């Protein structure tokens, strides 16, 4: 490892420790329960690939999907890219969608803009004062703008500014601003050992929101994580291997803490193969597991990439008997690499 790299690593570790300390200070578990923060739609996973890995995205450079986990990962955006994601929620009547555009055009910065919505469908109000009417249960809109760059070799930093509008029962409304920030450090290793990244992020730093009379905190979340990736050649002959494609293994883990909730541990596994079936650039299979207190969720996903497009799917078995959620996303890259 060069002297320059060592300096960068030391700086990152310092930054990592500071961030983690701040994270734990601001989001430490007061009572370890869900439902004590408002604007829950801010916690919706926008990345189908990452969700297949149980949402382990803190140290992952996941291109546009990093917008939902660690904006520092947006430094992996190498071309103009567009991604859409759709979720049919476990209630069967709620829908969540997002569209994100990212570009490397403002070098050395990588920028991304995103819009997401949440529509919970109708609720038939049945109140003891005699009111019977149908309203939209919840309609939320979120706009996001992100900036990411690499100030030092192996180090990525990123930040996101969010502005959201919440509407409950077409009667209780609020607007809010929030920030995300994060860093990812690629730890130089011997090539035989693969690639290791560590990352930290803080999401949804912002003021409390008042929808009626009393203010509630938003779900501020701090995370640290690590990702290890390695290419697994299937043939010793390099030329033949290139022709046949390669297997890529990814193992990732996150530790996170959301305000007023128990700590959360998540683990993800991805096995991808390039040059599948002759026409797919790659195909990947994913598994993930997340545990927060006594609430565990299981994640499964797969994806394909062809030409400049990719399609990802994730299935989530939510904690206890909440049910299943299906996530699907489509992404496309266009333009020239900066």
């Amino acid at each position, binding site marked *: 490892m060069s002297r320059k790299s060592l300096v960068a690593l030391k700086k990152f570790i310092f930054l990592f420790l500071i961030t983690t300390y701040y994270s734990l200070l601001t989001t430490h578990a007061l*009572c*370890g*329960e*869900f*439902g*004590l*923060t*408002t*604007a*829950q*739609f801010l*916690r*919706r996973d926008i990345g189908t690939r990452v969700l297949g890995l149980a949402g382990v995205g803190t140290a992952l450079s996941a291109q546009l999907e990093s917008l939902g986990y660690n904006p520092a990962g947006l430094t992996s955006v190498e071309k103009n890219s567009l991604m859409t994601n759709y979720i049919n*929620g*476990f*209630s*069967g*009547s*709620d829908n969540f969608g997002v569209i994100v555009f990212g570009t490397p055009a403002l070098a050395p910065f990588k920028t991304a803009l995103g819009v997401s919505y*949440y529509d*919970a*469908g109708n*609720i*038939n*109000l*049945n*109140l*003891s004062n005699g009111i019977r009417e149908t309203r939209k*249960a*919840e309609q939320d809109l979120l706009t996001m703008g992100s900036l990411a760059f690499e100030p030092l070799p192996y180090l990525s930093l990123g930040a996101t500014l969010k502005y959201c509008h919440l509407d*409950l*029962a077409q009667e*209780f409304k609020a607007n809010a601003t929030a920030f995300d920030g994060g860093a990812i450090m690629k730890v130089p290793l011997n090539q035989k050992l693969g690639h290791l990244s560590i990352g930290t992020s803080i999401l949804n730093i912002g003021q409390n*929101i008042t*929808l*009626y*009379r*009393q203010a*509630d*905190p938003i779900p501020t979340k701090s995370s640290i994580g690590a990702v290890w990736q390695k290419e697994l050649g299937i043939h010793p002959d390099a030329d033949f291997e290139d022709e046949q494609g390669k297997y890529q293994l990814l193992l990732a883990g996150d530790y996170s803490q959301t305000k007023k909730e128990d700590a959360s541990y998540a683990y993800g596994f991805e096995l991808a193969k390039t040059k599948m079936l002759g026409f797919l650039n790659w195909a990947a299979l994913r598994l993930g597991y997340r545990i*927060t207190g006594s*609430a565990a*969720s299981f994640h499964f996903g797969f994806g394909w990439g062809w030409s400049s497009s990719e399609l990802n799917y994730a299935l*989530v078995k*939510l*904690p*206890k*008997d*909440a*049910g299943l*959620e299906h996530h699907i996303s489509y992404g496309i890259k266009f333009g020239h690499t900066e």
Partner: protein
Amino acid sequence: MNKKRKFWFFFLLLTTYSSLLTSSWAAPNFTQETAIRLSSASAQTILEFGSTFRMYFIRDNAQIRTSTSTDGLNWSEEPGFRLSTSTILNTLDASSITACAILPLDTTGYRMLYTALSSTNSYHVLSATSTDGLGWAKESGVRFQASTSTTFIGSIRLQELSDGRWRMYYLQDSTGGNNPQNYELRSALSTNEGVTWSTEGKRISAPVGPFSAITLTNAKTRLLYLAPLANQTTYSQVLSQTSSDGTTFTPESSARLSTDSTKGSYASLLVYRSTENFRWRAYTGFTVNGSTTPNVYSDLTQTPSFDSIDPARMYKTQNGTGFTIKGEVFSSTPTVRLTRAGASDIAATGITRLDDQTITGSLTTLNQPLGSWQLVITNDDGQSTSVEGAVTIDFPSGDIQITDNLFKPKEGGRARIDVTIYNDSVVTLRIFTINGMPVKTVLDESKSAGTFSVFWNGDTDGGNTVASGLYYLRSKGAKLNRVDKIIVVK
């Protein structure tokens, strides 16, 4: 899979599926009765004179003769013949008579239509009239023939329509000659009691053999016809098709009657209501292999034929469930009951026979054991049919009613959740965030069937008040699995 293979794959899939759909009715089958009813005869039609049946049959392809019976089983041949090739010598002298049918005239008497083959190999439908059904006088002229007179016309059957018109079903060679392999079943209409006919079109494609047309009391028409087995030319089975309008027919599954083709083959077919009026008796002309003379045997639809019961799922909470059974061969007051090992029978009440294919009634399944039950339909004479698992006794789906599904916990508000279940079970009610994270277990315990109420005051399992927002209530219990929305504001 190339496009051509894909086409044939889906074509076969579609045709198989549609044939399953269109042949689902369980039509009644015939059971052969003992003894020969008539010797050397081909039964054509039956007229009722009070309590006496008179059957018109053809002998030796030359004479129309009659027999009488009071029970449909024992027939006494009347002397002489009603019509003969020797009596129709005129401009259309006939060398043989192959079929006949009779319609009662509005004024008095009858008109007989009969198919005759002339000595010049022309096929015509001719007619004769009678005031008593015994003495017949030939009418002049031709009632009906194909566009070319050498085209085979035979096996005519008549049906009166509700508006007074008559429909004639007949066999015709589809290629203009006389090859039984090319016989198709067609129809024609008459508005003047059979004097003139206008053709309607093909009803059943070749090969179709001699047939019989019956009208059910729900106005449906059934055509029962002789047909060969695949790769055979002799008739060894009786198939059937039904129609609601008399023109578009739907095949019924399997054969109504069949025989061992190594012993002989069917030659003619006449189906008529049996004396008890709810069964059908087929008079089949049967020619033993090696013989050229057919004898008439009889076959009867014996036991009730079950097709469906609606509803097939009844509930243990219902005191009386009205049902409709589709099938056939139902006596005027059959009994219907449900049976199950280890449980008392449930007898239906208020049984009504609506028509040949429908009976209705009511079954009381209140507090009866859950599961599948055997349905037993028994006719007045004791003939019965049992259908295992025809009815399932179940309990209804549970229900949730939430009052104050938008409430303010800081102002004393709470949601009242009324739960109704119809079977004892563990009931779980859990509150989740919109992201599916568990907030509160409102209820998780065994409950007896019935309705009960629980409340959620907006707290978490730890006793803290949730943040303002939308929450989902997941309810699970006996046939209860749903998600409801609750909004909390504070």
